[in-house]
């Protein structure tokens, strides 16, 4: 049934995009190349989002905990790995072209090629990002996976865990600012590190929401009337989100490069047993049937000791 939906979604998307491109390429439209591309993007958007939702249903079928015979644990589902790869391709296309447009405008520098080509690549990247966002929304809806969200009553524990993952020079100011009691024992790390749950996932979610919503408003402005003030705010926030994504991307790479097994897991889906045992001791017990330390601590039991092999404040 899911496959049928995906095939139907793909067929509709292909037909829709072909019809829109046919209109744009017919020569009957009076618009410039840049404006024509803008129309192509906004008219194909429903098909792209629809296909994303259908593919998200397919991605959801790959969800579920798994342990390999050699003890390796599945950290990400194949669906998530696929969505992450698609999102990366989208950003590789959309981010440099967006930055070029912005800086070109600020510096009043014109590229040595027609500007509409830059916009065209930006729109293709934007379409890929929107497809991935729709797929992830559908995936999360279908699987009900909330493992990257912080549950009710868990914030204190997560802020404490994050404190121990921060470099010592900023740990004390951070603890003072957020009133985190550092005399408490370090909570054990589960499937995801505290940095991933407190900083990475929320910031990416906010930035993605901001860039997609403001981007759609900007792209739709020639199709539906958008008040000048709304367009000004959307344009400003779109640029702010772009800068935020550049900063977050640098931080994301800074964080994941030294944790190479986690980086590899985003392509293979697996984390080897030893790494999981050493760096994510709270996660390993969950797939084996027992309640994870994460849950036990959430139920009011005292926190365990620091994660083995991560003493000294680093989770590496």
């Amino acid at each position, binding site marked *: 049934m899911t496959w049928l939906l995906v095939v139907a979604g793909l067929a509709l998307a292909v037909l829709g995009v072909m019809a829109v491109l046919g209109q744009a390429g017919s020569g009957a439209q009076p618009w410039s190349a840049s404006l024509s591309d803008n129309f192509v993007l906004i008219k194909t958007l429903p098909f792209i989002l629809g296909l994303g939702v259908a593919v998200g249903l397919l991605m959801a079928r790959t969800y579920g905990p798994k342990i390999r015979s050699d003890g390796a644990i599945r950290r990400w589902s194949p669906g998530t790995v696929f969505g992450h790869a698609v999102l990366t391709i989208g950003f590789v296309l959309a981010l440099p072209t967006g930055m070029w447009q912005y800086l070109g405008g600020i*510096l009043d520098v014109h590229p040595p090629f027609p500007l509409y080509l830059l916009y065209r690549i930006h729109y293709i990247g934007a379409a890929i990002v929107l497809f991935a966002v729709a797929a992830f929304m559908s995936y999360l809806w279908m699987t009900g996976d909330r493992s990257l969200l912080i549950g009710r009553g868990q914030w204190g524990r997560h802020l404490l865990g994050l404190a121990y993952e921060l470099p010592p020079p900023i740990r004390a100011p951070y603890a003072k600012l957020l009133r985190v009691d550092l005399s408490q024992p370090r909570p054990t790390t589960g499937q995801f590190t505290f940095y991933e749950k407190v900083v990475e996932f929320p910031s990416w979610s906010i930035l993605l929401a901001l860039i997609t919503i403001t981007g759609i408003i900007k792209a739709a402005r020639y199709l539906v009337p958008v008040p000048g003030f709304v367009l000004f705010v959307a344009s400003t926030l779109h640029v*702010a989100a772009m800068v935020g994504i*550049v900063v977050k991307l640098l*931080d994301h*790479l800074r964080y994941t*490069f*030294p944790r190479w097994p986690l980086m590899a897991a985003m392509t293979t889906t697996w984390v080897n047993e030893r790494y999981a045992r050493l760096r994510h001791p709270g996660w390993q017990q969950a797939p084996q049937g027992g309640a994870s330390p994460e849950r036990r601590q959430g139920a009011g039991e005292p926190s365990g000791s620091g994660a083995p092999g991560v003493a000294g404040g*680093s989770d*590496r």
Partner: protein
Amino acid sequence: MANLAVAYFFLTSAFVAKTAAKEGIVAQLSLLLGGVLIAGFAILLARECVRMFAPADAPTEA
């Protein structure tokens, strides 16, 4: 290096770009903040990359 180049353009534009000057102090401050953040995180990333290829003789912090 590309990120540092982007940061450089942000930072210099905050002071000399005519477009930003016309848009006002908020636009200039935004460029300044964006440039500082991009430069800062680009340096942190470069530091991590250097650490990755350096011999691991002591535990390091996140």
